[in-house]
């Protein structure tokens, strides 16, 4: 299984080297990868439907409990088949859709990278691994949305999508770590048994909230939904594959996967029902105001995702079954509609639903696909969509007290979805063909076969639901912790309230479709409300943040070295001073001090004189030289206190520092611009304060009774463990050698920095 997951990554790496062979006619061969994977996963159908769960364990970082463990059960099989099956059709479609595109190989690279990440996500049994694949899907989605990177809108949408889904990724990681520490394992299958323990833990609400944010950002739930319509800037195959059929369902998958672990609690159910309901109604109403085909489809995708979350929130067996079925239904019809839109866009050059008419005369197979998908989307028998809708109604009717309200909401949503499906799948093909599109040609079959297959599958499964019910849906429902036995889908349920609701939906949808025509006027009207949408609020926050960081940076990073030093000093004075003021005892035991010697007094006098000379001299060179004198005096102090290592180092460093100073001074202009009287007083106060703080700090350290354990350990073991007699050096190269390694790396980086800055010769065009 590991190879199956990594195959996509391997292929995208391979494309880096051999990409140019896959740009031309051979591009379609890339589709063999998802096809092979589809066949590979399909062969597990028999075993999984017998209730088997296939697991695979690969050690990765066992010390952190992070392993590449994979589980293939009903739920992951359902998603795997969808990812590879629709993936195959999208790969084929892309070969024609982006024919002769300059970066077709790159596109396939991203696409197969995405496919592999998505497979990893749905198959992972380890939470941390799941998180990594989750992030990888966000990253590949970023590249795919921004694929037309010369377009500013694409880049902006890509960043927005990455920011929103990335935020969710972080909360997923945080939630996973909490969950891991509550249960003591990162393995999802091991968590299944500790549901009660987690629910009783004080972190339950926190964990669930973190998981919710992850799922809601990824699956575009209100108020995080706005990245999805913007993501439609991506080429159509991407919208089809990532932003309707697979990736956006990752959040739904997460919720389904964790239903048996975290579900069946009031907080879980209520939140999901409320968020799902708001999302589905909000975006269903939005659909009425769109004229761009992809815009309509984007909002109807959000609606569908809302319905899925809503159903998961109900949590009953029927509701979970309805979710699983609706995922298949939605993937089939929405992918079809997107692919159809892509063909229309390619052949006519527009996606504006107000001008597209009568295309059935020129694009008949595409029209058939669109029409069948619209039927499934609307839930008209005998499509699979009808079965999905019936189950959704049936599940919602079972909810207790608020059932009536919820049923009304879901019926309204379904009516609006009916409308959206027909506008996207039927309207462009009906009516009189305008003059402008008379010459539209049939595209190559590579383009229209894929949507036709998907649309036909939607009808076929509807007529023969036996193909998918016990083989796919039963195990999927089982893996969500509900009893999936004896699920038998059928088209005809007899006369009951569900059928009545279906009839109402279809009737109202038909009326709505014929009464409301999408128009630019409506779209303008809704855009006036744009300023209170979550998107604008998010952008406002983003702008505010940029402005704030601008101010902040300009205040502190003002380019004057003296100000940097001043800032650091003041910061330290305030912080250390505050702490010292609160805790310091300001007492000094004079008896512990040694008597002053003549040497010490002399050295101190020398230092004092040099300091005063440095301060009041008007020659730079003299100031540097007297600073050097101070440095050498400190060396002598080290010598007196028997620290020859320090003295040697200090001596060499001081020599080099003086040389450096002189070299730098050489570059400065000849005239002296000394700071004025006020400035000197200010600087003097800061310096005296800083010096006093450090002095008090050192006195405090002396007064503190230090544990000598560490230094004694070093002294005792230097020769025994490290064969060295010089403890200082043994600490540097052995006991704390990793520190030294990092320090010399920092040194090297600093040297490269100096070299780079001074050797940099900017071209005039790059200078600012």
């Amino acid at each position, binding site marked *: 299984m590991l190879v199956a997951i990594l195959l996509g990554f391997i292929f995208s790496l391979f494309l880096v080297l051999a990409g140019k062979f896959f740009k031309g006619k051979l591009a379609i061969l890339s589709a063999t990868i998802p096809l092979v994977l589809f066949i590979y996963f399909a062969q597990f159908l028999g075993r999984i439907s017998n209730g088997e769960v296939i697991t695979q364990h690969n050690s990765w970082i066992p010390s952190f409990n992070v392993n590449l463990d994979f589980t293939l059960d009903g739920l992951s099989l359902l998603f795997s088949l969808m990812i590879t099956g629709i993936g195959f059709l999208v790969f084929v479609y892309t070969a024609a859709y982006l024919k002769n595109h300059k970066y077709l190989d790159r596109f396939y690279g991203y696409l197969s990278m995405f496919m592999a990440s998505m497979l990893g996500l749905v198959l992972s049994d380890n939470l941390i691994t799941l998180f990594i694949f989750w992030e990888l899907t966000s990253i590949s989605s970023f590249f795919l949305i921004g694929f037309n990177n010369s377009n500013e809108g694409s880049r902006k949408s890509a960043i927005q999508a990455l920011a929103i889904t990335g935020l969710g990724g972080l909360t997923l990681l945080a939630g996973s770590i909490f969950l891991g520490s509550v249960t003591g394992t990162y393995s999802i299958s091991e968590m299944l048994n500790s549901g009660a323990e987690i629910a009783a833990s004080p972190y339950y609400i926190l964990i669930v909230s973190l998981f919710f944010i992850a799922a809601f950002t990824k699956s575009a739930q209100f108020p995080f939904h706005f990245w999805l319509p913007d993501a439609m800037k991506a080429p159509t195959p991407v919208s089809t594959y990532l932003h309707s059929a697979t990736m956006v369902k990752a959040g739904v998958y997460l919720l389904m996967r964790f239903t048996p672990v975290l579900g069946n609690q009031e907080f879980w159910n209520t939140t999901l029902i409320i968020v799902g309901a708001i999302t589905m109604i909000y975006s269903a109403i939005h659909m009425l105001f769109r004229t761009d085909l992809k815009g309509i489809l984007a909002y109807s995708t959000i609606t569908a995702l809302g319905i899925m979350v809503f159903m998961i929130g109900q949590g009953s067996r029927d509701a979970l079954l309805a979710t699983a079925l609706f995922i298949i239904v939605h993937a089939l019809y929405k992918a079809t509609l997107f692919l159809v839109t892509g063909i229309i866009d390619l052949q006519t050059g527009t996606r504006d639903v107000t001008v597209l008419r009568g295309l059935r005369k020129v694009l008949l197979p595409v029209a058939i696909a669109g029409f069948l998908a619209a039927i499934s989307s609307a839930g008209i028998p005998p499509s699979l969509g009808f079965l999905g809708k019936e189950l959704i109604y049936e599940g919602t009717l079972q909810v207790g007290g608020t059932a009536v309200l919820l049923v009304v909401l879901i019926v309204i949503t379904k009516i609006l979805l009916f409308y959206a499906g027909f506008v996207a799948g039927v309207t462009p093909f009906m009516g009189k063909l305008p003059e402008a599109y008379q010459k539209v040609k049939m595209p190559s079959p590579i383009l229209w076969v894929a949507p036709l297959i998907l649309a036909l599958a939607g009808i076929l499964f509807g007529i023969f639901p036996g193909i998918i019910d016990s083989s796919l849906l039963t195990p999927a429902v089982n893996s969500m912790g509900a009893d999936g036995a004896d699920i038998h889908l059928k088209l005809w349920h007899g006369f009951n309230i569900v059928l009545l609701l279906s009839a109402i939906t279809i009737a109202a949808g038909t009326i709505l479709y014929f009464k409301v025509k999408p128009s630019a006027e409506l779209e303008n009207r809704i855009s006036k409300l744009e300023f209170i949408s979550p998107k604008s609020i998010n952008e406002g926050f983003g702008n505010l943040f940029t402005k704030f960081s601008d101010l902040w940076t300009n205040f502190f990073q003002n380019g004057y070295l003296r100000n940097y030093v001043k800032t650091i000093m003041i910061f330290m004075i305030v912080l250390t001073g505050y702490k010292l003021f609160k805790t310091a005892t300001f007492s000094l035991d004079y008896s512990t001090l040694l008597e002053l010697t003549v040497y010490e007094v002399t050295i101190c006098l020398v230092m004092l004189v040099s300091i005063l000379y440095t301060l009041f001299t008007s020659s730079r060179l003299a100031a540097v030289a007297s600073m050097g004198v101070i440095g050498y005096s400190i060396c002598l102090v080290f010598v007196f206190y028997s620290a*020859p*290592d320090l003295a*040697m*180092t200090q001596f*060499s*460093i001081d*020599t*080099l520092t003086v*040389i*450096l100073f002189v*070299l*730098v001074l*050489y*570059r400065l202009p000849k005239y002296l611009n000394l700071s004025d009287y006020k400035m000197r007083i200010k600087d003097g106060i800061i310096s005296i304060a800083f010096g006093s703080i450090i002095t008090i700090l050192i006195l405090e350290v002396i007064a503190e009774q230090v544990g000598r354990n560490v230094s004694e350990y070093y002294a005792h073991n230097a020769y025994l*463990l*490290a*064969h*060295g*007699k*010089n403890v*200082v*050096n*043994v600490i*540097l*190269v*052995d006991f704390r*050698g*990793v520190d*030294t*390694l990092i320090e*010399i*790396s920092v*040194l*090297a980086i*600093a*040297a*490269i920095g*100096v*070299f780079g800055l*001074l*050797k940099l010769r900017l071209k005039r065009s790059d200078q600012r």
Partner: protein
Amino acid sequence: MKTIILRTASDYLLPVLLIFSIFILLRGHYLPGGGFVGGLIASIAFVLHSFANGLSNTKALLRIHPGFLMPVGLGLAFLSAIAPILGFGLPLMTGIWMPEPISVLGTIGSALFFDIGVYLVVIGVTLTIIFTISESA
């Protein structure tokens, strides 16, 4: 500063200081000294030479840019840090020692190579910074 005395002296001081720096480097494990100080002393030797004879002459003497010493030194230090993992299956930075001490140098172990790495990095860093600044001056 092209005085004859300094120039003549530096011709003798350079090898002497370099040998002294190596001496300091090698004795580091037993007596005051070590790679860091040794590296600084070696750098001072070259800086002194460049003051007396001009930077271009020192650079010609060095043949390679001192910056190249940084990756070499870092590589050596890193190798001696991971050698226990690669060769012996021991944790990072475990000291590996030859069983018997040899004359003059004492016991040779991975720490010595680590220290030589530090020595080279310090020379590379110091000379790169000083040469770059004095070139642009």
